[in-house]
């Protein structure tokens, strides 16, 4: 009963489904959970976000761990018995194009995670990915393609792991650590008409990398509401966001119109300096952004830069961030790590995607992109893309757009 209340935004919740800790369910889309699903958000919240018109379908017996996030702008299908590890990210849209106007939303591409597949800790499953039955994507792996049934991939770039990781039949994955969930799941995917599309036979008929006709931009707001009220509501929210920023960032020197739509944890030591430029935005979410500035260090952030939730900025030498940058969720900028302490410099118009790590001493040039999950330890030239772990620099032209 309590679980049903906590999942009230979900269109369907199967019997035996449990929530531990916190789960953030948001967006106007349709979210369906099968039976005996376990959402274990005790360490960190779990995020299920389906945009209006989009769907997240989670099969029976699925286990999702803390800090994991599923974002659907079109459709994400998670088959029965799938396990999604801590901090893993599954998304069917890149949210920004690599080239051109980064405020336009690119097309979505459905993500399918079939029965018994495994997504490891901090792994990132990108638009167009299809993990077939029993496929395993190990910790920290970034994948945007089909992984064949029973195949294990690891690394960034992902490579197949030759030696079998699981003993026995790779298609049969059991989770002895969750005895109550074992074998309870009938093999069906909820809400999917015409049989079970996640079965290899049905899925094989579908084209690979199916681009969906999800709206490229957010649909216009509800019609019929008087414009004056909407403007007033917008002003009130904006005022609240600015006041909240002034409170959370009171240890920083703030420009005009800095906003925070959620908590920001700030620690500036005496002798440290933090300057946040005009109209910088801190987006709230499943976990707060954290800023630490040590004595003698300086953090400067240029105007109109945006931080999504869970960003970590740890300045011990100095971190300088340019104007109009975008930092996605769980990005980490620390200028002192692994025995090295050296300033980090990020130019203007840089986009750092989800879960990327910027190491000490790195300079990122204007207009560069750091791809999701990338670990950057060398400088990134202006107008290029850093991708992989360790990162390599590729031309921005070597992306779909």
């Amino acid at each position, binding site marked *: 009963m309590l679980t049903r209340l906590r999942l009230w935004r979900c269109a369907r919740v199967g019997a035996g489904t449990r929530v531990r800790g916190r789960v953030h369910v948001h967006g106007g889309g349709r979210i369906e959970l099968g039976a005996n699903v376990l959402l274990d958000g005790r360490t960190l919240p779990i995020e299920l976000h389906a945009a209006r018109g989009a769907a997240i379908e989670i099969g029976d017996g699925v286990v999702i761990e803390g800090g994991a996030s599923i974002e659907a702008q079109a459709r994400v299908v998670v088959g029965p018995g799938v396990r999604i590890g801590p901090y893993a990210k599954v998304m069917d849209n890149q949210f920004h194009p*690599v080239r051109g106007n980064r405020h336009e939303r690119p097309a979505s591409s459905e993500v399918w995670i079939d029965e018994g597949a495994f997504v490891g800790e901090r792994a990132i499953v*990108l638009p*167009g990915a299809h993990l077939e039955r029993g496929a395993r994507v190990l910790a920290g792996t*970034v*994948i*945007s*393609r*089909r992984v064949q049934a029973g195949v294990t991939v690891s690394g*960034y*770039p*992902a*490579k197949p792991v030759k030696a079998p990781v699981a003993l026995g039949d790779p298609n049969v994955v059991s989770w002895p650590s969750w005895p109550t969930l074992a074998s309870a799941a009938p093999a069906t995917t909820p809400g999917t008409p015409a049989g079970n599309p996640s079965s290899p036979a049905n899925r094989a008929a579908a084209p*690979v*990398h199916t*681009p969906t006709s999800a709206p490229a931009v957010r649909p216009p707001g509800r019609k019929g509401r008087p414009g004056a009220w909407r403007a007033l509501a917008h002003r009130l929210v904006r005022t609240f966001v600015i006041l909240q920023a002034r409170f959370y960032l009171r240890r920083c020197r703030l420009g005009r119109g800095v906003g925070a739509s959620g908590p920001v944890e700030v620690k500036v030591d005496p002798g440290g300096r933090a300057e946040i430029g005009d109209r910088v935005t801190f987006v709230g979410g499943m976990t707060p952004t954290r800023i630490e500035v040590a004595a003698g260090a300086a953090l400067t952030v240029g105007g109109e830069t945006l931080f999504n939730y869970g960003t970590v900025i740890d300045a011990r030498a100095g971190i300088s961030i340019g104007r109009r940058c975008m930092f996605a969720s769980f990005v980490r900028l620390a200028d002192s790590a692994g025995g090295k302490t050296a300033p980090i410099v990020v130019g203007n118009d840089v986009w750092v995607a989800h879960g990327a790590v910027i190491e000490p001493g790195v300079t990122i040039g204007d207009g560069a992109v750091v*791809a999701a999950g990338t670990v950057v330890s060398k400088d990134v030239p202006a107008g290029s*893309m850093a*991708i*992989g772990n360790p990162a*390599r*620099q*590729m*031309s921005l*032209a*070597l*992306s*779909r*757009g």
Partner: protein
Amino acid sequence: MDTRQKLRTYISETFFVDAYSDQESFLKSGIIDSTGMMELVAFLESDFGVKVEDHELVPANLDSIDNLVAFLERRTAARPAAAG
């Protein structure tokens, strides 16, 4: 197996497509995205024994079967000992 065939085999086994021409752009036709490009480069390095420099990660070298074959021929001609 010649270079062209080896590349086609890898691409069909990794990205699950085979109906494409030798001139077709992987990026434009949606066969490979930037994440996949990194996997392709790792394959070139491991199976053809070429070291691809970061400045060579451009469409002219990588974005079709023809471009890949030409790139590999240039590289192996320059350093025949490194051919795999």
